[in-house]
């Protein structure tokens, strides 16, 4: 039972993520989280302005239920299954973060320096989250998928376009993490 509270090992987690994907395929659907962003735009009425959002989002309601379940799962895991030993990073990473003024996890999922109450009074941190979100939303829709749709589903199905997208994800991520984040923080 203790193991439930600790960080779940990568092989257990990877296996369960594949199981989630295969379940959705068995249900006759597909595993892709970023599509929900398009549905939400349509629900908000974007279809009246832009044809891309004028589609039958109700046919995608099942995916909104998946994401609702995921939110519930996040709530339960964070509130009832967490432990102060969580997010045990490489000590080198912690040192590097300290140099950028970012606090060590000590069991937290998110750094206070970016997501804490104090940070939420800083226009810079707010801009980081909003701009990050814009890049995520624009990029995933342009690429036609995110980590779930391309990295997991696409690569599992040996799709060359997904391989290109995933290489793109990592080029972008590495540029941000190595060159841009040190300038931003």
């Amino acid at each position: 039972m203790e193991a439930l509270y600790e960080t779940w090992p990568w092989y257990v987690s990877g296996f369960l993520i594949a199981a989630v994907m295969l379940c959705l395929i068995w249900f006759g659907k597909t595993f892709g989280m970023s599509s929900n962003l398009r549905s939400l735009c349509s629900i908000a009425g974007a279809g009246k302005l832009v044809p891309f959002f004028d589609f039958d989002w109700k046919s995608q309601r099942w995916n909104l239920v998946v994401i609702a379940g995921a939110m519930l799962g996040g709530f339960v895991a964070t509130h009832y299954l967490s432990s102060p030993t969580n997010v045990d990073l490489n000590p080198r990473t912690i040192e590097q973060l300290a140099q950028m003024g970012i606090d060590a996890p000590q069991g937290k999922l998110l750094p206070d320096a970016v997501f804490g109450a104090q940070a939420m009074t800083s226009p810079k941190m707010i801009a980081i989250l909003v701009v990050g979100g814009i890049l995520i939303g624009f990029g995933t829709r342009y690429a036609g998928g995110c980590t779930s749709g391309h990295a997991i589903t696409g690569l599992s199905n040996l799709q060359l376009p997904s391989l290109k997208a995933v290489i793109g994800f990592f080029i972008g991520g590495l540029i941000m993490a190595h060159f841009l984040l040190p300038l931003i923080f």
Partner: protein
Amino acid sequence: MLKALKYLIVGFVFGIVLTKSEAVSWYRIYEMFQFQSFHMYGIIGVAVVVGLIGVQIIKRTNAKDIKGEPIVIADKEPGSARYWIGGLIFGLGWALAGSCPGPIFILIGAGFWPLLLTLAGALIGTFLYGVIKDKLPH
């Protein structure tokens, strides 16, 4: 209602796994892009290998879905520019905000309200793509 329940359960498991594996953690994404831990690569790698085996079994046995219809896993549209450029743009955001679309929702569910800003950004970004999509190379 019962039909919706199975999606809720699958989503619930997904949310628990992503939280307990810490794939939703800003820290883990940073650590991954610094190549300072195998953890995230292990998660994605195992998911792909197990997924690959599952997809091959589905294809070779002509498996049926829950309604008894043949399972068809759609191929991704051919193309290059959209995957390279779109992928790169998403990667920049992934490392900047430290979350991808699934975790944005999962963290909001967990009560991390600042992620509402990331979600708002992601909706704006999705909307912008819809506005200029016909002008972009795909």
